[in-house]
């Protein structure tokens, strides 16, 4: 892809928007009901997963079809740390972050042996392996999975409504942190070398950028946060099980569609995609396969018409409107 779809402009505007959304979202639990909060929590988690996929694909040029591996592994790690090792639930949740980072290192080492295009299927194979192994781990309920003990869940809030509030703030905090980190990374020296790499890998190498090191860094960041998000998701679902915790559809297929439709390579892209996805799901999920077909077709159409997604289409439309006004005035 050309540099055209990369983020542009200074970091001040995105940071201001981020600050504004914090001011709106943080006090929200005092005004809305549990159902709305659950709905938003779901949106935050999806959005964060989409940001992380975009960090890899849109910014790093690394397409993974195996990101559900880390979400699932994080959930299983959270279950193991709390239930089998008896660690404090908050500590366990925090530990899923370094756990995910450590897990991504060998995964990246294996996958990076494959050429760019085959990385995608390779990551899928690894995710399958993770899921199959999770179903064989002793003490995790095998193929049908196992529920979290009530006292672990209650640590995050004794009553349902305080728990819903706490998980809401927790997932929002993670989302903000993820977006903040991505803004920071993109405006750091690493970020600029990343753009150079994304535009022309060979030229970037000639300028002293090591593409594999940069990609490894992105992979580790995304693996760590996906694992943490998997732990939060487990807290939402109250259980781990191989097909649910490692859901290809939820954590990879939908996520890819969201980012592709919203706009790859821009921070706003996954936000647009996730909001659209959640709104559409409300109205269309009853149609099952047809919904999936529409999403698939929309993603293909977007890739062919404008690989920068809705984000670029909107920008172009605004630009055209501004120009028309200029001409008229």
């Amino acid at each position, binding site marked *: *892809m050309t540099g055209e779809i990369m983020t542009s402009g200074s970091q001040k505007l995105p940071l201001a928007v981020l600050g504004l959304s914090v001011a709106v979202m943080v006090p929200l639990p005092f005004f809305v009901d549990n159902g709305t909060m659950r709905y938003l929590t779901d949106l935050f988690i999806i959005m964060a997963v989409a940001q992380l996929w975009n960090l890899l*694909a849109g910014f790093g*040029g690394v*397409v993974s*079809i195996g990101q559900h591996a880390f979400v699932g592994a994080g959930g299983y790690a959270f279950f193991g740390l709390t239930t089998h090792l008896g660690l404090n639930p908050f500590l366990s949740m925090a530990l899923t972050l370094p756990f995910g980072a450590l897990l991504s290192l060998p995964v990246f080492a*294996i996958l990076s*042996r*494959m*050429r*760019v*295009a*085959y990385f*995608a*299927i*390779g990551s*899928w*194979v*690894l995710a*399958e*392996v993770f899921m*199959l*192994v999770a*179903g*064989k781990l002793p003490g995790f309920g095998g193929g049908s999975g196992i529920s979290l003990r009530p006292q672990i869940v209650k640590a995050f809030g004794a009553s349902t409504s305080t728990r819903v509030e706490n998980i809401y703030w927790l997932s929002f905090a993670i989302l903000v942190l993820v977006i903040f980190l991505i803004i920071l990374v993109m405006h750091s020296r690493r970020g600029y070398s990343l753009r150079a790499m994304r535009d022309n890998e060979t030229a970037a190498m000639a300028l002293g950028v090591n593409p594999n090191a940069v990609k490894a860094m992105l992979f580790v960041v995304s693996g760590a946060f996906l694992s943490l998000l998997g732990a939060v998701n487990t807290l939402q679902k109250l259980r781990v099980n191989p097909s649910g915790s490692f859901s290809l559809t939820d954590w990879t*297929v939908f996520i*890819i*569609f969201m980012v*592709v439709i919203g706009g*790859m390579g821009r921070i706003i892209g996954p936000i647009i995609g996730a909001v659209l996805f959640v709104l559409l799901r409300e109205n269309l999920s009853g149609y*099952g*396969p*047809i919904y*999936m*077909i529409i*999403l*698939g*077709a929309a*993603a*293909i159409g977007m*890739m*062919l018409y404008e*690989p920068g997604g809705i984000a670029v289409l909107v920008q172009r439309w605004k630009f055209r409107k501004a120009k028309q006004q200029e001409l008229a005035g």
Partner: protein
Amino acid sequence: MELVNTLVQGTLLGGLFALYALGLSLVFGVMRIVNIAHGDLIVVLAYVGLTVTEFFGISIIVAAPLVLLLAGGMGWLLQRGLFEFVPRHDPLIPLLVAFGLSIILQNLMLLGFGADPQKLSIGKLEQASVQILPNLHVGVFSLLIFGVAVALIGGLQLMIYRTSFGRALRAVSDNEANAAMLGLDTRAVFRKAFVIVMLTVAIAAMLMAVRGNFDPASGPTRLLTAFEAIVIGGLGSMWGTLVGGIIIGIAQMVGAQIDASWQVLSGHLVFLILLIVRPRGLFPKNDG
């Protein structure tokens, strides 16, 4: 004897895996597209076979030419109607387009045929077996699959290295711009290539559908085994792909001896180990 039996069964299964892989390998070799939808195309053609046999009330053996014809038509249409419009300067775009196609195909099959597993039957030939060693019986149909795999690889090798179309394919694969400059109609080459790809897919699909059950969600498993066979063998080497398929087949059969749930997992694990030990595959080509 148990071990020999496992090895023989695994080897024969590897022939089927190599058949899955040939089309995937060709699409990547010629068009540089990683066709994520490859497994789903195999399953689509299995359903085409099922529909044709049910509609005309004939055996798949009789219906095979018609299925091949339809497959070739589909290949031309896919290239002409979709992949021709996909810019390939960035591998991301074709990859994601194929990904979208995969999800569309899976859900179209789900709408059209439901989630129940299906199978094609060819009667007695399925159960027939021959004794090749004392205490060692081998299914005739498994032997047939393996034979088809060897014949198809041999045929494709001949086509690629001995015909003028093969020369065009290699030229386009090496450098598309140069091939076009020398007067090759690259668009026509791509279309023909996709027709050939879909013919191999149809052959794999019919054999798969007779050998066992399939359902709309069977595609990804086929894609992953095909991919593993290619990577183990070394990109671009078709005989290598057969060896890769055999290795996965044996790994799966050995795994299945432990426990049915180990079959798929042990195939994946052997693939990962080989990827670590031999990242460029067993028979790497210099140009990859």
